[in-house]
């Protein structure tokens, strides 16, 4: 195949993954979404203990089982349960044993690392020809964000993998707690859309509509007014301590890239540091192309690059956000520049 960034995904069934730590409000969010009339043709895959509490047409419960490939890393493991559940849905639909569905929502367990789920969707030979990953939604409990993210590496991975972050339990939290949770989410994953559960309501479009691929340049430091207060500062400082080694850096490249040189660099980077490069998301100005190319990777899992129709802003420079754990950002910047021979600078948010 000559072109890697073709228009993939057309005609495939979109899959939304809802993840988040134990008790962070995944099922409540799912229940809200399923009440919407436009979610009627949705198949739901939940873990075996989940209960949506709705007479939904198609709810499957799956027991978690992971098959590790012999030569593989943990993130690149096929979720055997998910593979079987998705294949089973297709077979039963074809035999008219279940209603037609045009969307799948997967609610993960609170302790699930989302990477194997994403790997299964993009790599399993049958699954990838029928389904496509649409969005990853991560719920973060405003009251317990500190506890969840500080003690559980899965919580950080879930947050880093998110395309949307929904701050839940905002009705129970103090304004300073909400502000601190939002600030931490922005710092760990500036590429995700940040929403309050109260704002989501029952409008699934806010969560499920295709996000225009791109890199959110609003990866600015937290600016919530409540953080200016002493209590707010204390909350944020507490969260910062826990996630001190996880952070993001947004790099801007001053000239068009050689795609091949970038691919060589990224493959080597992910080979060496994939466990600590939690997310790579970028919009690239590639030589020979007028329109940008969108890249998206979660740990070692790289989604097929996408051609975009046009640039989202007048700034046509490549912009890449890295969410990393303990990776030196200056070395990352220098390495990218040396491999691509393009000047690389850190994005500013003036």
């Amino acid at each position, binding site marked *: 195949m000559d072109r890697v960034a073709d228009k993939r995904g057309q005609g495939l069934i979109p899959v939304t993954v809802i993840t988040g730590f134990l008790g962070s409000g995944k099922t409540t969010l799912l229940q809200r979404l399923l009440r919407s009339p436009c979610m009627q043709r949705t198949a739901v895959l939940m873990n075996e203990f989940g209960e949506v509490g709705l007479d939904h047409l198609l709810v499957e419960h799956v027991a978690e089982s992971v098959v590790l490939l012999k030569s593989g890393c943990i993130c690149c493991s096929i979720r055997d349960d998910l593979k079987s559940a998705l294949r089973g849905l297709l077979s039963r639909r074809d035999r008219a044993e279940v209603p037609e569905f045009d969307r799948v929502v997967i609610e993960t367990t609170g302790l699930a690392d989302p990477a194997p789920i994403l790997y299964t969707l993009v790599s399993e*030979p049958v699954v990838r020809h029928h389904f496509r990953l649409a969005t990853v939604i991560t719920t973060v409990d405003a009251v317990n964000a500190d506890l969840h993210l500080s003690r559980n590496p899965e919580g950080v991975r879930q947050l880093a993998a998110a395309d949307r972050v929904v701050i839940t339990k905002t009705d129970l939290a103090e304004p300073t707690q909400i502000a601190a949770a939002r600030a931490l989410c922005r710092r760990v994953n500036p590429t995700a859309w940040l929403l309050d559960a109260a704002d989501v309501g029952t409008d699934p479009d806010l969560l499920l509509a295709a996000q225009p691929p791109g890199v959110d340049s609003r990866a600015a430091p937290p600016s919530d007014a409540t953080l200016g207060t002493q209590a707010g500062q204390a909350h944020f400082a507490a969260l910062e301590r826990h996630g001190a080694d996880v952070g993001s850096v947004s790099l801007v490249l001053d000239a068009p890239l050689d795609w091949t040189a970038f691919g060589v660099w990224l493959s080597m980077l992910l080979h060496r540091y994939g466990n600590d490069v939690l997310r790579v998301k970028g919009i690239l100005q590639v030589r020979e192309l007028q329109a940008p190319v969108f890249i998206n990777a979660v740990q*070692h899992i790289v989604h097929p690059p996408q051609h975009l129709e046009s640039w989202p802003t007048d700034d046509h420079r490549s912009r890449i956000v890295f969410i990393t754990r303990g990776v030196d950002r200056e070395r990352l910047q220098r*390495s990218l520049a040396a491999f691509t021979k393009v000047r690389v600078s850190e994005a500013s948010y003036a």
Partner: protein
Amino acid sequence: MCGFCGVFLSETHWSDGSVAGPQAGGRTRRQERAHRVAVANRVLRHYGLKLADWQGSAYLLSGQTGQTAVVPSVAAVWPAAEQLRKRSLDPFDEALLEALERG
């Protein structure tokens, strides 16, 4: 689709192929493979290794003492190179970066 182990459950690794085909003024498949080999060799040279196209379908990685490995994609080069050289390859390696900046 795994950037770490290069395991192939799908037919094409993301890093294989060009994003601009000949119609868009880009390279042909053969030209693209030759270019990919040249780019990878800038890095591999630093470790005493060499990559070559292998019948248009894989790559042949060779060491200076005659050791070889056939790999399906550039992403699979790195674990194979580490096995041949018995050391880890680091894109942040200061000496490598200096060599790339010079060359």
